[in-house]
């Protein structure tokens, strides 16, 4: 059976998200670099696989899939004993609530605040105009996270799920320029955040995602 192929830029946010989950699940994968700076993701050849011209996509033994969270869900579904997607009906519902929280209440502002810091670090773009307003939005959202995480260890309950891991790229990027994730007035957010960014699966690709065949 062929190794899972991850087509993406080695450094972009959604590649980091995908690779972190692959690493958590100890799934071997080959990173095939897509040179986004030169527009390789907008060519007709690329668009055949990812019609929106976005990275990443995977080729899992001929099965093509895109959207990082869909990819993560697919590989986690192939490894049900990981517990990254709970199966009990109510636990699963709370998991879906947590993934939706990340999508609607975290990514919009954390992405718009975090990505500029990250792009500046990469030397790709230096424009922090959108950051302050989005940090303000994120600050209020994190108060709700504090309320949730004061009652349970992770976002969906007391076990780690994909919902927590989905936060990683942008939670990490926001912290490149702000202490918003670790402020003392939100000790539970800080506890949860510090645990996430200490995970080997996140640390493994600090300098970029690379082909990983052994764990």
């Amino acid at each position: 059976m062929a190794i899972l192929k991850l087509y993406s830029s080695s450094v972009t946010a959604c590649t980091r998200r995908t690779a972190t989950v692959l690493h958590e699940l100890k799934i071997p994968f080959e990173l095939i670099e897509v040179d986004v700076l030169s527009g390789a993701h907008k060519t007709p050849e690329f668009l055949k696989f990812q019609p929106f011209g976005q990275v990443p996509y995977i080729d899992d033994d001929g099965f093509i899939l895109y959207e990082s969270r869909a990819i993560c869900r697919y590989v986690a579904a192939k490894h049900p004993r990981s517990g990254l997607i709970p199966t009990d009906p109510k636990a699963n519902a709370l998991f879906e609530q947590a993934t939706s929280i990340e999508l609607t209440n975290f990514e919009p502002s954390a992405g718009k605040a975090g990505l500029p810091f990250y792009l500046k670090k990469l030397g790709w773009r230096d424009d922090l105009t959108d950051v302050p307003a989005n940090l303000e939005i994120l600050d209020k959202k994190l108060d709700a996270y504090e309320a949730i995480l004061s009652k349970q260890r992770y976002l969906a309950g007391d076990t780690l799920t994909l919902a927590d891991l989905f936060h990683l790229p942008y939670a990490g990027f926001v912290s490149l320029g702000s202490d918003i994730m670790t402020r003392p007035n939100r000790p539970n957010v800080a506890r949860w955040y510090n645990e996430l960014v200490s995970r080997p699966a996140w640390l493994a690709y600090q300098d970029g995602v690379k082909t990983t065949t052994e764990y």
Partner: protein
Amino acid sequence: MVLTLYGLAAPLGGTATVAMTLAEKGIPYTFVSVDLQHGEHKQPEFRKKQPFGLVPALDDDGFVLYESRAICRYLAEKYAAQGPTLIPTELKAKALFEQAAAVEFANFEPHARAAYNEGVLKPHFNLPVDPSALNACISKLSDNLDVYEVILGKQRFLAGDEFTLADLFHVAFGTTLAEAGCDLMTSKGPNVKRWWKEVTSRPAWLSVLNNGIKTTMCADDALSEP
């Protein structure tokens, strides 16, 4: 015991998305209107249910859930045996469903919502509309709908040939676009037009539009046609 849905009784946004799913599945429910105009959703009492101070929220016999997409998924799973199958179960079909659901949130919702905020909400509150901001989100939406046109030329719905929640999630914001002065859902191309007509003609959506979002005690009420 009957489900209770808390939210806004209007055919747009998260509450309407859940109401459509309840109608698709023929699930009775009690509706409790949350007074958004007077900030009820931001009060500590409501925040006990929904810590972000947003609607909708669902109470299923003491089990409280929020985030419209999560509520819809829960209903689809709990009532899998009745009504249409809204989430596939086979591994690859489900992955393609997740791909389509992710596309809705990444490539459709932000621009449709921005167009609604700029082109419908602002005039409603007598605020000046910024035409270049409105055109910017419509333009991004248009580029993405070019891709929808390609996808929907090869398959009937966004996740494959069956209707799923991935299609349903588009309805409650997509239908506000016309009010914002954007006719992309019918003018983009024949495939998007065909899909949009099919999705918005479903009896479940028509019942939300025509009967409103209200306490619905039997399946017949939920699916009554105009």
